[in-house]
């Protein structure tokens, strides 16, 4: 670590000591039957709790920002600190020792993915307008990429953008947009030339989420909550200076965003209440509470799960260490995503097996029916942010160098490409 990092860490520690409380001893014993028994992956909070959480997140980001920790790697002119990713990671590691509000509503999409994209592709006055506000916690940004007809095949977006003088008129439907309901601005991929091959006729725009014609509908997922939205764009007018990158050059913009998405995947780790599904101490207590601590079959499955979970943790730590040493994360990060989904799924089914019929209906017993929400979230883990199948293609082609499949058309005009038989808006 460069010596200046030491003084930075000292400064950060002083800041955190002033504005936050340090967590009490890490190795806390699991207290079975005490407190909330949720192991949910998706939040199932009512709207008022959700809103309060967003306000808390924004407030903490503001405090960070005002003390020079809002955007550690960002350029000073946009409210950043101008330091390296080594400093950034050091701060993250340090902050993890403190109890601070969860800011993922800002950071996961907006600060982590949209911010870097604006920085790379937007005009100067647009950067000035949005970046400081985003990193100060004033506004939230969302990502308007996926569509009903463009999931794994993202480049087949159909939302149209038609030029009209100094403005563009956007129409279409986006889907799987998280935090849209809290967002002031969204980054949208639109079709600007359907006569070009599909990757070459896309343009990226920053859309004011409060503009006329933007309608946000919560999208309820199978576990019951609505962590995502559908966003309908009907003749939404966007000024041309809100275009990112060249006309028909939006795919390059999207790649910047996606590269930052992939880099953020590994960090997910086993945090949050869902982490109980892959925590040895918690699962050991689950067995103990159910009189199964001596059941060799249950122990066997637990040991197998724990081995995979621990090894995945080791992999993530090592990636982080390499990132600290300045190495760029490669497509190998897909391994972490695959393992995360697999481990959490395995943990959920293991727990389901232990609680048995008490998962059929809510008997009120602590730590039994609570597993239902996680179980119902596991299918999403294999799909969101890139399906398992796409991850495996990436690994096989980009890491192992296996040849691409023939018969995938990247040259014909988008207009002529085959679409799904059923109507999609």
């Amino acid at each position, binding site marked *: 670590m460069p010596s200046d990092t030491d003084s930075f860490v000292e400064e950060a520690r002083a800041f955190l000591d002033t504005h936050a409380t340090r967590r009490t001893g890490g190795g806390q014993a699991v207290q079975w039957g005490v407190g909330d028994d949720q192991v949910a992956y998706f939040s199932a909070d009512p709207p008022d709790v959700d809103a309060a959480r967003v306000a808390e997140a924004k407030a903490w980001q503001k405090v960070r920002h005002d003390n020079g920790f809002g955007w550690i790697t960002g350029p000073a002119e946009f409210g950043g600190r101008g330091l390296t990713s080594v400093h950034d990671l050091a701060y993250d590691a340090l902050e993890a020792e403190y109890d601070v509000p969860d800011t993922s509503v800002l950071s996961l999409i907006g600060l982590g993915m949209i911010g870097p994209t604006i920085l790379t592709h937007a005009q100067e006055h647009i950067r000035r307008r949005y970046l400081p506000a985003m990193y100060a916690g004033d506004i939230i940004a969302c990502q308007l990429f996926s569509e009903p*007809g463009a999931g794994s095949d993202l480049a*087949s977006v159909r939302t149209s953008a038609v030029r009209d003088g100094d403005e563009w008129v956007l129409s279409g439907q986006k889907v799987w947009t998280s935090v849209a309901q809290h967002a002031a601005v969204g980054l949208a991929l639109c079709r600007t030339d359907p006569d070009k091959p599909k990757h070459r006729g896309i343009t990226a725009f920053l859309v004011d989420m409060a503009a006329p014609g933007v309608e946000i509908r919560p999208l309820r997922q199978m576990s019951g909550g609505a962590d995502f939205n559908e966003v309908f764009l009907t003749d939404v007018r966007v000024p041309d200076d809100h275009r990112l990158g060249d006309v028909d050059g939006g795919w390059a913009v999207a790649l910047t965003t996606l590269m930052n998405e992939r880099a953020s995947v590994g960090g997910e780790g086993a945090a949050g209440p869902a982490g109980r599904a892959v925590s040895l101490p918690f699962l050991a207590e689950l067995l103990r509470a159910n009189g199964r601590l001596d059941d060799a079959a*249950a122990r066997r499955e637990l040991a197998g799960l724990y081995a995979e979970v621990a090894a995945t943790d080791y992999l993530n730590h090592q990636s982080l260490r390499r990132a600290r040493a300045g190495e760029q994360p490669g497509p190998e990060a897909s391994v972490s995503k695959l393992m995360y989904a697999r481990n959490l799924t395995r943990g959920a089914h293991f727990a389901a097996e232990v609680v048995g*019929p*008490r998962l059929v*209906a809510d008997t009120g017993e602590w730590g039994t029916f609570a597993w239902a929400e996680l179980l119902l979230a596991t299918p999403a883990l294999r799909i969101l942010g890139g399906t398992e199948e796409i991850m495996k293609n990436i690994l096989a082609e980009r890491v192992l160098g296996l040849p691409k499949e023939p018969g995938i058309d990247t040259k014909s005009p988008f207009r002529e490409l085959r679409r799904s038989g059923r109507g999609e808006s």
Partner: protein
Amino acid sequence: MTGDLDVADGRIGEAELEELRAATRDFLTAKADEAAVRAAAASDRGYDEKVWAQMAEQLGLQALALPAEHGGDGAGMTALSVVLGELGRVLLPAPFFSSVVLAGTALAAAGDADAARRLLPGIAAGTTLAALAAPGRDGGWDLDGADARGGLAVAAEPGQCGVTLDGSAPLVVDGAGADVVLVVAAGPAGPTLCAVDGTAVGLTRTSLPTLDLTRRVARLDFWSTPATVVGEPGGAAGVLRRVLDVATAALAAEQVGGARACLDAATAYAKDRVQFGRPIGTFQAVKHKCADMFTRIQVADAAAREAAAALDGAAGAPDPGVAAAVAHVVCSEAFMAVAAENIQVHGGIGFTWEHPAHLYFRRAKSSQLLFGGPAVYHERLLARAGM
């Protein structure tokens, strides 16, 4: 179906089975599309009473496999499996499994002519709803198996006319709406099957939130609740053993039906959904996923059929207890795997609330755990096989 179904010595042939399947499917296609199923599941009682009555009146499904001497057709498990496969295919919310399969089998097995005469005709006609309470404290079913640890959840003591029950049955399928509840209670002579009126004093019924949105479950609390003994006092263990064999075999048929629906949905979507300019079914990853689902279902179907044939006493069939336990293991795991893969084939749309895929996922997990789950059913299989 009663009357026009050719039932020779309680068994029906291949052609009649196909006729039964077609009639049931046609009925359900008309009465139980996805919207109807969702509406019924969300309704107060949790099922459509009109459809339930029509099932009885037009097709006689409730009567099909119940004993001929008490208002049934005695058509056997193979016929019943055909019906359950169709009910499972559409996830029909109805007290069929609880009243006909669980309670009906218990009554038929209890050897109590009086109770059978009193209750079975109504069950067969669909006019009486009966439920059977899982005996274990944790909702387990085995009296002598791996989940017997918790012991019986309800105690029976001699009362004024019959017995009185005290305790709680934590998980009773369709328990809230049942006209009569059969309870395996710990009596002085041992596990004893008792019948409780749904409106008896001292009985509290609480509907519970369920994983499976298409099958209701209630908690029943008994406080000196009057009940009558069904069958021999202390004789419930044998009854329950029979119930488990029949119910797990029946559930297996239902699971295969649900799994088939998932595969049908996945293949239809794979043919239709285009990504990268091709139907996703042209990609080997999707193709092989569907082939894996098919393989699991073929094996599961064979197991469910064999269990039904064995319970029907077909020539050359394996031991019914073993075959039922095999079917319970294989069909539980097949349905769960197939329901999960169906969502994966569908991608994003597959895990929305609006798409029916999750209803099958919920049913799959719920029915996998209903009789104890993997930890229990593996050991039960070895026990049935004499190991």
